């Protein structure tokens, strides 16, 4: 009987302009509910977690949202640390939203680890009447910036909502070296453990 297995951690980020519905998409995937209000759903938590069992192996998918710091393009570089995958999300009914994506790709290029898996997502397909971006444009942009996948979704109607997340995990797991132990997220053995259990008083105890 082997020791309980420690799940492998996969760190994924969502980036993109405000009101692209990133947070709703996240909420849909993790809680399977729809909340249109962009700002309240990830209040107070650094990330949302989904436990996955794939081919009998355990994984913890940690999903980070921008916490509003994308509003004035003030995401910290530390946000990108150790990310295995990034979902870049725009709103298909808002042309400006789509036009800002090259800048988001550049930022990801700048700060995220090399070889990070990028997926482009055009959200809010439920707003069919107000569509301002063609799917083909999204497809093209994705290719141009090295995103391995493009899809359109609706957090509201559930249309393909889980797909980008599932695809991200699939690709991360199937790309050799993507979960490389040399990557910083996995290099925990080098780190000083400062958690409460590790603390002792200075010096030795006499007992």
């Amino acid at each position, binding site marked *: *009987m082997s020791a309980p297995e420690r799940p492998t951690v996969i760190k994924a980020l969502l980036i993109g302009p405000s009101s692209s519905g990133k947070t709703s998409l996240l909420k849909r995937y993790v809680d399977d509910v729809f909340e249109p209000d962009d700002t309240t759903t990830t209040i107070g938590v650094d990330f949302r977690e989904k436990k996955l069992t794939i081919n009998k192996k355990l994984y913890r998918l940690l999903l980070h949202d921008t916490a509003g710091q994308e509003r004035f393009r003030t995401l910290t570089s530390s946000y990108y640390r150790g990310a295995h995958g990034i979902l870049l999300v725009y709103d298909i009914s808002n042309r400006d939203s789509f036009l800002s994506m090259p800048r988001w790709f550049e930022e990801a290029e700048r700060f995220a680890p090399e070889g990070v898996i990028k997926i482009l997502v055009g959200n809010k397909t439920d707003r069919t009447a107000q569509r301002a971006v063609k799917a083909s444009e999204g497809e093209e942009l994705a290719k141009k910036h090295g995103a391995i996948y493009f899809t359109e979704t609706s957090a509201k109607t559930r249309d393909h909502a889980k797909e980008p997340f599932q695809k991200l995990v699939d690709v991360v797991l199937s790309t050799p070296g993507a979960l490389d132990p040399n990557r910083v997220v996995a290099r925990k053995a080098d780190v000083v453990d400062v958690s409460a259990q590790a603390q002792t*008083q200075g010096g030795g105890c006499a007992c």
Partner: protein
Amino acid sequence: MASHGVPRSSTTVRTPQAIQADLLKIEAYNNLVSEVQALRFPSVQKSKHTYSPTSLSTTSSLLTQNPEFNTIWNFRRRIVLHLLLPTSSSSPTLKDDNDQENDKLSLLSSELNFLFPLLQKFPKCYWIWNYRVFILQTASTNLSLQTALKLWKSEMGLVNKMLSRDSRNFHGWGYRRYIVQNIETLQKDINKETTKEKEEGEGEEGVDGEEEEESLAEQEFAYTTTMYGKDLSNFSAWHNRSKLIPRVLSERGATIEERRTFLDGELGEMQTAVYTDPYDQSIQLYNHWLLLESCSSKQTTSTSPVFSLTNSQKLETLSRTLEWMRELLDEEPDCRLLLEEMIFVGSLFRDLDETEEEEDVDREEIKRDMQSWLEKLMEVDPMRGGRWREMQEKL
């Protein structure tokens, strides 16, 4: 030590979700217990016995949650013993000796691996340790000598890790001695076997059948050096060292001269240690033992003497010691431990017969010094004033 300086988990008010989660856990646990008990006491209808790998894994789940459930450990023992029997092999075809050996090894190794995280979580649970020892002993009796030896040697690795995390763990050192003992015994048996094979002309062509070193005393001795080098207050290291010295010297086949040299080396090291910290009891105790063992007028160990110094050599050693202790006393006039040791050295000196060469040392001077040291002790350690007074009178 887990208890020192670590904030204990506070008894916070639990949320309803937490309480609910706990109730679920309790229910799951109780179900698990029932399951295991059913395995132990199969009803009449069940004709199959329950000493199977499945029941092993069921007890694993239970024991992981509650390692104090001793009866289940006993159940597990029976399962393991049963699984080790040759007839318990599920395949009808006869496995050759090698395969059987590997199966047994894999079972016992996996048992040890199963225990490891439990030990990390519950380091003081006796049941887990007892079971671990049971597995190791079972290995000795069920596996080939070489294979068993491998297991015991890797157990040494575990002890090294434990002691590097908590070098003064008394139990850890005791366990270490136990492992060393077993390794030595196994190695001896292996060597006997090899010799026998050589004599009987067995053994493969070209294989030398070298005898491996049986005694770990030298290695263990070096280990104590490393350990006190890391922490001078490591009483267990000093203690172990004192136990090993007689063996080490006899294994080296040390002559009296060589023993003398060794002793001088140890005493020199102790001088440095005592100077570094005369307030440390462990250091003083070891030094005390060294002097007692080497310079006492009576024989202290039941077996052969370790150092065999002549009377005048003893006197010389003691007066040398007193000399550096006196100098140290100048630096640390109020050091209780030092004063006590100096009185001890003085009394050892006085116990020895006078010799003709005794010019430099005035016994009267030592007596006077001891008086003044005792005076000082009464000042510094008034709680035991009665004892010091008594000693003064006896001088």
